[in-house]
């Protein structure tokens, strides 16, 4: 029988046990050969399923495509990667002939005979492109080819994979021809996307459903280990086909040390380890402890790192930590359903009143800690077609009241004297940020007498309502896929109406005619002028009340070098350098 004394002893021992055995905390080794980052919450290594940023980043470490973005140059520029040079384009703009670099090999893998990776051929690209279009893959990336490549749609519909697809032709082992139905000036941009990266058929057939866990690419790194929801480790791919650090950038890159490694073989770092850290607090502790090379900044930590003047705090400066600010290629807006009997239609005055009633600079300050800037065009900065012209509907309460009265709702009341009640949908059910944003809009609309009801929805429900056009007003954003204004303007082309990407059901024959003209035009000052004209047309009709352009703030360690954020490219890690620390 235990005595009370023994019970006391057991209790104490139990308490002490909890603390026992706690040696020193294992920490990542701080060498120049390993880079520690955060990431890893992604779908797997299948280029055909790479629609989200996280997945695209991981795929770009192991796979490559014909083209890629120039790392340092701005405005954004495409350069050949697995293509030997820029393609030869036929005078009618319908045939692109790519010559592949010779000697590029897939990494060694058991899927190949003898485990030895073989040379990449034009047939590999054809296989990869067909795989993207294969309905069995249910890829969200088939849009890059399906309406543009000759014979792509019928091929996808007939369901026989090994049937030839007339738009993809291998002229010889190292020559690939892409034939189009109409000029597609965006082709080179979309070929930089992971959707268009090359995969070996042997790997897909060898690993079958497990293919997404066994990447076999030509990229700068190869996968060493991957524990989902925890850690990924890559090492240098010994068969990576020589590429060197660029020697051209934009003004200021040399002073920033971004050209110090010009001409050095890539990748610079031997190993990359990514931790899948879901809590920003933990991530912040590890970043401050020097265990992670770079950190984004979330809203709650913004003031810990950034001063009211939008510089770095003294404490972080003392640690040598550096700040980067990069505009994202996206536009956030309030969209109006143009088919709605109240907010839609040809009279833009109610929509314009809505736009004038919202104090966007205050929105940036209060809701976004000035991490976003007020938008002035549907085309975001950095993309040809964006202008610095002032937004036609800046915050102006008197003008908003006047416009809403002219629209038939004086004081926000209809002809029967009832208050105008509008319903807005936004994603973010249960999210504090979404609630604060909703309250901001409700308060501002109340000032012109409008009763705004905001429905905060789960993302799937929000998408369904948006695609079905089952909403009156919505809060939304569009993140550019490539730096061409066409990617934003297609959201207003009437054949793309719901359930297509034109979620506001905007319809303007003049705009449609211009769209059909510019969509086949190569880049030129004339096309840029037309983009500007089209953006002006849309803004006049006001299917979007423009809100903000996001600006990404991030921090990086003093020993982390060659970091330059690119909003479209995910293939940056081969350029990174880590100094001994």
């Amino acid at each position: 029988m235990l005595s009370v004394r023994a019970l006391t002893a057991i209790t104490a021992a139990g308490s002490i046990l909890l603390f026992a055995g706690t040696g020193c905390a294992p920490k990542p080794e701080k060498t120049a050969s390993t880079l520690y980052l955060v990431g890893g919450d992604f779908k797997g290594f299948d280029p055909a399923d790479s629609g989200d940023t996280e997945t695209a980043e991981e795929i770009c470490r192991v796979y490559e495509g014909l083209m890629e973005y120039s790392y340092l140059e701005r405005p954004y520029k495409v350069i050949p990667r697995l293509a030997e040079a820029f393609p030869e384009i036929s005078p009618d703009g319908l045939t692109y002939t790519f010559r592949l670099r010779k000697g590029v090999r897939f990494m060694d893998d058991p899927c190949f005979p003898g485990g030895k990776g073989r040379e990449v051929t034009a047939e590999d690209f054809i296989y990869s492109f067909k795989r993207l279009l294969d309905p069995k893959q249910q890829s969200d990336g088939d849009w890059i080819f399906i309406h543009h490549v000759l014979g792509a749609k019928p091929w996808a519909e007939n369901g026989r994979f090994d049937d030839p697809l007339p738009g993809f032709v291998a002229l010889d082992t190292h020559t690939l021809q892409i034939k189009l139905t109409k000029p597609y000036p965006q082709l080179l941009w979309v070929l930089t996307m992971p959707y268009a990266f090359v995969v070996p058929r042997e790997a897909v057939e060898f690993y079958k459903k497990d293919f997404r866990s066994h990447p076999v690419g030509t990229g700068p790194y190869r996968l060493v280990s991957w524990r989902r929801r925890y850690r990924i480790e890559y090492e240098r791919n010994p068969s990576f086909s020589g590429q060197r650090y660029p020697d051209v950038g934009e003004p200021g890159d040399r002073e920033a040390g971004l050209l110090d490694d010009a001409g050095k073989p890539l990748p610079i770092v031997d190993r990359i380890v990514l931790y899948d850290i879901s809590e920003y607090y933990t991530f912040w502790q590890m970043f401050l402890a020097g265990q992670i090379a770079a950190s984004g900044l979330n809203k709650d930590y913004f003031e810990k790192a950034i001063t009211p003047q939008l510089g770095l705090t003294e404490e972080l400066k003392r640690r040598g930590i550096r700040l980067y600010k990069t505009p994202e290629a996206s536009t956030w807006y309030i969209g109006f359903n143009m088919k709605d009997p109240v907010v839609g239609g040809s009279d833009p005055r109610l929509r314009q009143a809505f736009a004038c009633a919202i104090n966007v600079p205050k929105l940036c300050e209060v809701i976004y800690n000035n991490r976003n800037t007020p938008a002035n065009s549907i085309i975001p900065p950095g993309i040809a077609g964006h202008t610095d012209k002032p937004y036609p509907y800046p915050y102006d309460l008197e003008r908003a009241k006047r416009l809403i009265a002219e629209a038939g709702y004086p004081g926000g009341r209809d002809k029967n004297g009832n208050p105008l009640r509008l319903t807005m949908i936004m994603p973010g059910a249960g999210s504090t940020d979404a609630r604060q944003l909703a309250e901001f809009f409700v308060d501002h609309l109340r000032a012109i007498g409008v009763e705004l009801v905001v429905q905060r929805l789960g993302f799937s429900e929000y998408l369904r309502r948006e695609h079905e056009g089952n909403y009156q007003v919505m809060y939304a954003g569009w993140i550019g896929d490539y730096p061409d204004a066409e990617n934003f303007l297609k959201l207003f082309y009437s054949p793309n109406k719901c359930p297509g990407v034109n979620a506001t059901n905007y319809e303007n024959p003049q705009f449609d005619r211009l769209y059909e003209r510019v969509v086949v035009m190569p880049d030129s000052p004339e096309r840029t002028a037309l983009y500007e004209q089209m953006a002006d047309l849309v803004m006049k009709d006001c299917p979007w009340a423009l809100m903000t352009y996001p600006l990404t703030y991030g921090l990086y360690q003093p020993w982390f070098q060659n970091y330059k954020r690119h909003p479209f490219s995910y293939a940056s890690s081969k350029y990174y350098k880590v100094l001994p620390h």
Partner: protein
Amino acid sequence: MTAYLLRRLLSVIPIALGVLLLTFLLFRIIGGNPAIRLAGKNATPEKIAQITRERGYDKPYFLNVENFPHQLFDAQFPRLVGRLLRGDFGESITTRQKVRDILVEGFWPSLCVTVPLFLLNLTLAIALALLAAYYRNTWVDRLLVVLSVMGMSVSSLVYIMVAQYWLAGEWGIFPVWGFEGPQYLLLPVLIGVVAGVGGSVRFYRTIVLDEMYQDYVRTARAKGVSPARILFSHVLRNALIPILTNVIIALPFLYTGSLLLESFFGIPGLGRMLVMAIPNGDEDVIYTETFLGSMLFVLANTLTDIAYAWADPRIRLR
């Protein structure tokens, strides 16, 4: 007893189906067509229609009356039930992993945290409750009660943040984050115990004290039985029923892991994955979790009843 057990086990069917039906109503009918999300932001209407068709999202929700009688059950909910009963849990729409693989991968890391946490919490709480009851109305009892109330009043999040900042970050006693070996589990388990033990101590102390005021305790004391013997041989035995209820009902939750601890300490378990599945609308993960969870919960209840009969011969299961 056998008839009782059979009855209870059969009750799993309507309960699991009911829970599944509610989840289905919430996510599929109110939540919308997952094909829109799968098709991506640049999707064409044809693409959405194709995925909808291939994944069966275009079928009727409950009964396919158009194809009566041969394909009456060729509808979304009956297909889901059939699939789950066959052990086919589907795949995650966010990671494209088989849900079965997700469960297998995350099960052990979750148990690595929850089992030691549960056992330590239970042992420590019962021991402290017995101590408090033994020293009732003395400074020992009061101190334990005050500490318990203080412990349970502070959010787990505060313990995590303070411990991660000081014990791990500043003093380096524990790793900040990771799942590389047993030492990585010490801090999450310690935090879990500190955050949870207060409530358990108060609960068990009340149970033990209730027993200590019973007539049989007074009789034992009058007969000169030692206080320790009264505590362990009589009081603890009679207090077993509420303790067992508390313990067995907690068992199904062990496999679901601990959301906060797993998220903050990088434990690749089921807790974080399951909670992330809800905002992501990851239906198959949610259906599997609710289906298995409801079955485990009914089984745990049945086990509790059996334990009652074992602990108290006066109870008969009919």
